[in-house]
């Protein structure tokens, strides 16, 4: 069966991304609105993470080649971000005086921020194999794909 990026497991991803988009934006808004001067870098990072979750959610909902490409970019930035910020927050906690979604590899959010982009990338890859014209459909093609 042909799987589309925005149905089946994709819809579960959309739900989780949606929850993160909402909570990360709200958190960033509160941080920037009430205590921006305390840790501007960390709060700007929160806002960046929130924006990426929002765009990823929209991209996954839209689906299609454009949505897929956008989602791929977002998931890649997210994975890079959570790894970079996670490492940096462990290395020097003074650089991140207040928590962001990605601090400690997303420890404050049950490590979901670390797992989510990996699941997203996996799902995009899996649906890429059987979507669109001329996509790999059989085992031989799958073996040679990418």
């Amino acid at each position, binding site marked *: 069966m042909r799987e589309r990026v925005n*149905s*089946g*497991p994709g*819809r579960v991803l959309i*739900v989780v991304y949606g929850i993160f988009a909402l909570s990360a934006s709200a958190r960033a808004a509160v941080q920037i609105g009430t205590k921006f001067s305390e840790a501007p870098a960390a709060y700007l990072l929160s806002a960046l993470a929130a924006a990426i979750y929002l765009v990823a959610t929209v991209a996954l909902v839209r689906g299609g080649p454009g949505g897929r490409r956008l989602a791929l970019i977002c998931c890649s930035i997210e994975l890079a971000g959570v790894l970079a910020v996670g490492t940096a927050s462990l290395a020097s906690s003074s650089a991140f005086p207040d928590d962001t979604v990605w601090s400690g590899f997303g420890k404050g959010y049950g490590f979901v921020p670390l797992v989510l982009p990996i699941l997203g990338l996996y799902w995009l890859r899996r649906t890429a194999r059987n979507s669109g014209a001329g996509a790999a459909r059989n085992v031989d093609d799958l073996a040679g794909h990418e």
Partner: protein
Amino acid sequence: MNDTLGVVVIVAALAVAAWCAIAAARNRPPDLSHVIGVAVVELAALVLTVVAVVAMIGGERPGEPGTFVGYLITFLGLPPVAVGLARMEPTRWGSVILTVACLVMPVLVVRLQQLWEATGA
């Protein structure tokens, strides 16, 4: 904030999450029993919200009222949104959506309680 009500929501949400996870494991879409389960969680969440709002009108204040109200809105909105999305996905993944939503509810209860206790009220 009322701790007993918080426990009721957490227990109900975890029970319904398990019920929906069983459906997902059996490759079944959610049926009426799952929707009723989520409705029960929503009802418990609604009671908790009313009690919290009454306490706030009575003069008690959580540490960050704006954040607290934001969490309350998410808390009330999540179950209906999850049911709506699950209906669009009448496969096992619809059951997974309800499971995820029911697993997030206890997290929201804990956050609401933390925010409430930040005042020492």
